[in-house]
């Protein structure tokens, strides 16, 4: 499947792009993280500590075990600091 993968804040900076389109066979977010981390050192470093990473699937907060069935957009970002 084709996924738009978005990065925000320091994840965007470390990976070097705000978004990328990827071909993926991932069934869950965790599978996708493994695929992305295998791409290069920057992805691997940014996604090394998942306790510091939050995820949204199709713009809804999700967790690492969330299914990607039917998903189009996955975003990775640090814990939010709004307000």
């Amino acid at each position, binding site marked *: 499947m084709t996924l738009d993968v*978005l990065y*925000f*804040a*320091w994840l*965007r900076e470390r990976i070097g792009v705000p978004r990328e389109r990827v071909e993926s066979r991932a069934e869950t977010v965790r599978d996708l993280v493994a695929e992305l981390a295998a791409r290069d050192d920057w992805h691997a470093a940014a996604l090394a500590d998942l306790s510091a990473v939050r995820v*949204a699937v199709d*713009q*809804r*907060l999700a967790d690492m075990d969330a299914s990607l069935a039917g998903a189009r957009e996955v*975003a990775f*970002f*640090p*814990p*939010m*600091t*709004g*307000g």
Partner: protein
Amino acid sequence: MRVLVQSDPFDAAALLSGFGAGAGAVVTFTGLVRGDGGLVALELEHYPGMTEAALSDHARAAARRFALTDVLVVHRFGRIELGAPIMMVATAAPHRRAAFDGADFLMDWLKSRAPFWKREIGADGPGGWVAAKDADEDALSRW
């Protein structure tokens, strides 16, 4: 109910004009850029699309939960200078407890669930990203 996500400054008085007509109690919360340790501005990144939807969903959830008669959320992104408002929530209800609790709940949620990320800007340029606080996560677990 009204949700605004914008880079421009907002006019609180204009937004609050007529807000909560018929209510007995209106509470507002305004968050401003505080000048800690040489900070000259904040830069806020957000997730366009998700931000608006998440804020609207949560404003509706707060309205239902606390029987609010009106809710307003306005949140800026981009560069925000020292002393300037970052965001405001307003809640209206027949009585004060619901208006206070609704605003308090919305703020706890905004602090750690709305897709915004703050970075500090010092005199020499961009500094670090603001770290999320455990206290904010704890605050959310009250509800």
